């Protein structure tokens, strides 16, 4: 089914009050993902992809 941005979604996307909370939420979520560490992969047994 084709996705579309509805008018109510659009209003939420551009509502500064809602977006302030979104900004805080996204900042923390992104920080957790990107600063959450990284490492190697080669201890994992390499299998060809299915």
């Amino acid at each position, binding site marked *: 089914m*084709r*996705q*579309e*941005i509805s008018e109510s979604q659009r209003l*939420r*996307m*551009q*509502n*500064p009050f809602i*977006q*302030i909370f*979104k*900004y805080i939420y*996204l*900042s923390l*979520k*992104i*920080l957790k*993902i*990107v*600063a*959450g560490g*990284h*490492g*190697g*992969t*080669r201890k*994992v047994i*390499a*299998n*060809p*992809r*299915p």
Partner: protein
Amino acid sequence: MSKIVVLGAGIGGHVAAAHLRRKLPKDHEVLVVSPNRNYQWVPSNIWVGIGRMKPKDVFFPLEPVYRKKGIGYKQAKAVSFHPEGDASQNKPYVLVEYVFGEKAGIQEKVTYDFLINATGPKLAFELTEGLKPGTNKAFSVCTYDHAEQASTGLNALVERIKKSNSRAKILIGTGHAKATCQGAAFEYILNVERELVRLGVRDKVEITWISNEYTLGDFGMDGMLLTYGNSTLKSSDMVEMIFRDRGIKWILGAGVFKMEDGKAHYENLEGEYKTEEFDFAMLIPAFSGHGFKAFDKDNKDITEKLFKGFMIVDADYTAKPYEEWTVQDWPETYQNPSYPNIFAPGIAFAPPHAISKPRKSKNGTDIFPSPPRTGMPSGITAKLVADNIIDAIKQGNMTLNHKGSLGNMGAACIASAGYGTTSGSGISMTTYPIVPNYNKYKNTGGRDLKKTFGDIGLAGHWLKLTLHYAFLYKAKMKPFWWLIPE
């Protein structure tokens, strides 16, 4: 005492030099060799390209910062690599040539104990006939001066439309069958669209996306399945939703091979040769290695030990079909296997293969995106290389404890979709891992859906703006800069 030479002062080289200097005692020398005078925060070039930022907002001169921090700096370009020295020089060295000032044109042997090659990509405009920034009505946003030129071109078009009330066509995307960096073009097309709305001429302009991607939202990463609100969405559906919402058309599987005045000639996967006309275009060129040569102690050419286009590192370069690719093919330490004191983080290393599925046109032309390696992974890989060198210097042996494969690393892409404090928009996306791990995440396209999500809205614009100021602060090495993660 050790001497570490860093080639390049982009995101990778600058991050490596900054961490080395902060963590190593002053009796060790850190030297940056770069042909560029300025550090530029490349992700903000798209805003220069629409005239909402000036070039001075996205760059600063390197030399004063390096002088203040005790980092050596030579404004020179690398010419050749001599990892064993030569008949007259016992130490390994890089032959460099000064590009500015009184020493311009003079060559010098720069010796090292450790070498970090962070020279990034060469913007290979010449691989597409007629593609040169500012000619044939086509532009680039790859550097701040290209972006400024693009802004001038876009303004001229808008003025022309306003004066003549005529219609116009804009074409934005990739300018080569194997180009990468679709993300930058994606940001630019959305920003241009918003600017045309703001300037009141949107209804006069047809905007078209042209790309070597097989589907929208591939971004050189084979696309992704992501969490969007309470649902799961393919990146192709998300980008299609945005393009439809903005009235942007698209052409996919297109390998642009020739540009003429207002015309882009391309071949598609069906093997058809087509032409798209435009009044303004911004096309990302192919990226390539710099064509460096390497020589051993007897001056014998050993380029194949160091380079495969980009620099050879600890990846598995065995040629194999797409179905047999694994994340284990991707490098973890960015160390050259022949010369353990040479590293190539960021964009300078040769990827083992693409990430997107390779596709050929019916004529046999490869048309698919090369793997993207954006600022965040460049910074992370540069930092881990610096940490491994620091450990080697302090402990006296190379332990390589710091590892960071793109198959075990997350990335955030905050794609600007319009500039403005309350009218701006951004598409916030994270991907984990960058290279899909189809074994670990079997049912979710190789990605962890808890860490792979998308969001659209004004907050995304604020986030992108926050990153702009935070990373320029960090790059200037102002107090506590190291607290900001790569």
